C-alpha cells in the first residue's frame, strides 16, 4: 500500500518546482506497506563493464514523477566514491565531491563517534574496504512484484564479466511491518518544498528542496555545494547506509528488568522511542497504545511539543524527539530544519520476538539498514551522531544518549520526566550495534546516463 492509499486516496497537491522526472524515485517515494526488497552491492572490476551496466539499467531506474501515486515496484541505483573512481569519472569531477564522501564513512569514524562495539574494525569486511562500488535496491509492496523487479535488475548485473556481486540482502516481509525491536518506524519524514504534495498534518512547514536535492536553494537561501559538472550533480543527492544488528535479547532483558508488568513494559518501550509499538505518539496517546492512530498517516504525526516542554509525555531524550525536536525549547540554538533527513530504512532478518531473552538472541541475524538521504548527508549524519544521538547537552541531559541508536557507555541512563520527581532508568545498553556503513551518491537519471556514456 502506498502513502496515498493509507490516507484514503488523496493528498493535498502542491506546486512542483523540482524536476521530479529526473530525480530518483527513492528520494521522494515513501516505503510501501507492506514492503519487500533487496539491497545488492556490486564491485566494478572493469570500467567498461561498470559503464555498460549503468547504461543498460538506467531505463529501469524509476523517477520521482507522480511519486505520491506510485504503486509499482522500483529500482534505485547509487554509487560510492570508490565506485566513481572505478567508473573512471574524471579527476576534477572526483575532487568536487565533499571530503567526507571521498574518504568514506569508515574513515570518518571519529567524527561519527563510531568506536567501541561500533568501530569500523569490527564491521563486516566488505564495508569500508573500498570494494562496494554500486548499490542497487529494489523496493516493492508485494512478493510477486519484488521477484519480477529483482529479475529485471539481476538480468543487468549478473553474468557480466568485470562486475561482481559483493552481497545481496533481502529486506522487509516483516509481520506488521515492524522493525527489529518491534516498532512501526520511518513515520516522521520531512516535507519538501516544491515536491508536489502539501505537508501532511504535523510534518511542519515544508523545508527548502536544496536541503535534500542538489541544485536548488537550501534553508540558507543558496544551493549547497554540488559535484561538477552540473549534469552530474543536479537532481542528485547523497545516501548514507548504516547496517545495524539489533540486540533483541539485551533490549528485552532491559525492559523486563525495569518494568513489573506487561503494561509497564510497553509504556517503558514507548518512552524510549516516543511512540508505542503501533506508531501512535505518546503526545496523542499518553496511557495506552492506539493502533488505529498509529496506522493513520493523517493523525500519527500531527502534534507539537508546545504543551510538553518538560517531557512528561515524550521524554526529552526519546529517540523520536532527538531526531526531530520540533518546537522543543532546546538548551542550544539549533535550526531543526537543517538537520532533518529523509529516511528509507529497511528491516532484515528474523522478526521481533518479545520472548527472546538470551545473549544468543542478540546475534540472531536481525536488524536494519538505516538509510538516510540528504544533499549534505555526511555533514548531517556527523552532526546527528555528535550532538543529537551520542550527546544529551542540547536537551540539558548531560551525557545521556539516544536509547535506540546511541552507542552506550557503561552505567548509561535514560531519564523519564514525571510528577513529582523524574525516574532515571539504569542499565541501558547499545541495542543496535553498527556492523557496517557506506556513503553513496544517488545520481539523477540524466547523471546515470552521463556516467554510463563516459569515455
Amino acid at each position, binding site marked *: 500500500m502506498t502513502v496515498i492509499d493509507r490516507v484514503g486516496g488523496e493528498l493535498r497537491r502542491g506546486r512542483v518546482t523540482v524536476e521530479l522526472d529526473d530525480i530518483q524515485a527513492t528520494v521522494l517515494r515513501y516505503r510501501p506497506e507492506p514492503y519487500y526488497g533487496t539491497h545488492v552491492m556490486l564491485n566494478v572490476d572493469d570500467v567498461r563493464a561498470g559503464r555498460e551496466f549503468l547504461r543498460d539499467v538506467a531505463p529501469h531506474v524509476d523517477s520521482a514523477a507522480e511519486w505520491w501515486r506510485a504503486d509499482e515496484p522500483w529500482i534505485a541505483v547509487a554509487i560510492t566514491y570508490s565506485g566513481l573512481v572505478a567508473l573512471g569519472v574524471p579527476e576534477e569531477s572526483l575532487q568536487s565531491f565533499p571530503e567526507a564522501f571521498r574518504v568514506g564513512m569508515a574513515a570518518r569514524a571519529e567524527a561519527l563517534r563510531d568506536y567501541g562495539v561500533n568501530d569500523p574494525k569490527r564491521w563486516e569486511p566488505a564495508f569500508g574496504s573500498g570494494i562496494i562500488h554500486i548499490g542497487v535496491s529494489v523496493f516493492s509492496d508485494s512478493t510477486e512484484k519484488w521477484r519480477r523487479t529483482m529479475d529485471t535488475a539481476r538480468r543487468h548485473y549478473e553474468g557480466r564479466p568485470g562486475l561482481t556481486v559483493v552481497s545481496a540482502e533481502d529486506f522487509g516481509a516483516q509481520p506488521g511491518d515492524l522493525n527489529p525491536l518491534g516498532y512501526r518506524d520511518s513515520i516522521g519524514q520531512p516535507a519538501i518544498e516544491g515536491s508536489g504534495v502539501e505537508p501532511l498534518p504535523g510534518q511542519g512547514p515544508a523545508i527548502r528542496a536544496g536541503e535534500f536535492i542538489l541544485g536548488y536553494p537550501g534553508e540558507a537561501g543558496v544551493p549547497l555545494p554540488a559535484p561538477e559538472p552540473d549534469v552530474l550533480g543536479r537532481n542528485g543527492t547523497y545516501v548514507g547506509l548504516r547496517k545495524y544488528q539489533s540486540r533483541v535479547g539485551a533490549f528485552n532483558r532491559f525492559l523486563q528488568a525495569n518494568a513489573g508488568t506487561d503494561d509497564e513494559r510497553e509504556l517503558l518501550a514507548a518512552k524510549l522511542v516516543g511512540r508505542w509499538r503501533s506508531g501512535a505518539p505518546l503526545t496523542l496517546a499518553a496511557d495506552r497504545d492506539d493502533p488505529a492512530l498509529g496506522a493513520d498517516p493523517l493523525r500519527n504525526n500531527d502534534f507539537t511539543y508546545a504543551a510538553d516542554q518538560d517531557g512528561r509525555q515524550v521524554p526529552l531524550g526519546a529517540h523520536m524527539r532527538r531526531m526531530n525536536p520540533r518546537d522543543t525549547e532546546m538548551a*542550544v*540554538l539549533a*535550526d531543526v530544519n537543517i538537520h532533518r533527513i529523509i529516511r528509507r530504512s529497511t528491516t532484515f532478518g528474523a522478526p521481533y520476538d518479545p520472548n527472546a531473552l538470551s545473549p544468543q538472541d542478540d546475534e540472531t541475524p536481525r536488524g536494519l539498514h538505516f538509510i538516510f538521504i540528504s544533499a549534505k548527508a555526511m555533514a548531517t549524519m556527523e552532526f546527528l551522531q*555528535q550532538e543529537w544521538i551520542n550527546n544529551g*547537552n542540547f536537551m*540539558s541531559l*548531560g551525557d545521556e544518549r539516544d536509547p535506540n541508536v546511541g552507542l552506550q557507555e557503561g552505567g548509561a541512563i535514560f531519564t523519564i520526566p514525571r510528577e513529582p520527581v523524574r525516574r532515571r532508568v539504569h542499565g541501558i545498553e547499545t541495542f543496535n550495534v553498527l556492523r557496517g556503513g557506506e556513503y553513496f551518491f544517488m545520481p539523477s537519471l540524466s547523471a546515470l546516463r552521463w556516467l554510463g556514456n563516459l569515455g
Partner: protein
Amino acid sequence: MATETQAATRAEQDLTVEEQIAHLRELFADAPEVGKQAFENVFKDLTAQASQTPPPPVESAGRVGIRLGKVSELTIIVPLAPGGAERTRAFLRLLGGNLAGADDVGTVHDMRFVFLDNDTRMLFATAYDGDWDTYIDDFVTKIPDYLDIIDSAWEGWPGIRSPDAKDYLAEHQVTAEGWYVANDLTVAETRRLRRIGEAVDEFLDKVGD
C-alpha cells in the same frame, strides 16, 4: 598560523618530560634575571611533578583551536575594513558593551571584542562548548544578521551565508598554546545545575521551617 603551532607542539611531545625540563632550563639560562630566578625556584617542583601522571593534554577542537573536556577556545585576529571599528564600536555601545543576547545560543561561555593597533585590527576571543564547526550552519539560518553586523567590520568578510565563511574564520583563527578550563561543564549543564541548586535550596528551606 594554526598549522605551524600544532607542528611545534608535536615535536615537543616527542621529548620525555625530563628532556623538556632540561631544554627549558637551557632556554631560561638566557632569560632576564627575574625569569632565571623564578625558574630555579620552581625547578624542584617541576622535576618532582615529572614522575607523576600529568593532567590530560589539550585536544583538538576540530578544524582549528583546542579543547579541554567539553570547552573549546577560539581566538581570531583580523584586519578591520575602513569604518569597521567605528560601526562595531557604536553597535557594541548601543548594547552597553553587554552581549547578553548571546544567551540564546546556549554554547557560548564568554566573548570579547578588542580593538587593536589604533582601530586597524580586532581581537575576538570566546570559550564555547563542543567542536569547531558544529553549529556554524545553525547560526547561518538562525542569526545571520547579528553575525554579519559585527563581522562585516572585518576586511574581506564574505558574509556568513557564503560558502567561504568557514574558510575565512579558520584562516584568521590563531590556536592557543595554553588553555585552562575551571569547570568542565557546558553552558547548558551550568544552567541546569543552577536550577537544581535553587530547587534544593527551596526544598531545604521548607524542611528547615
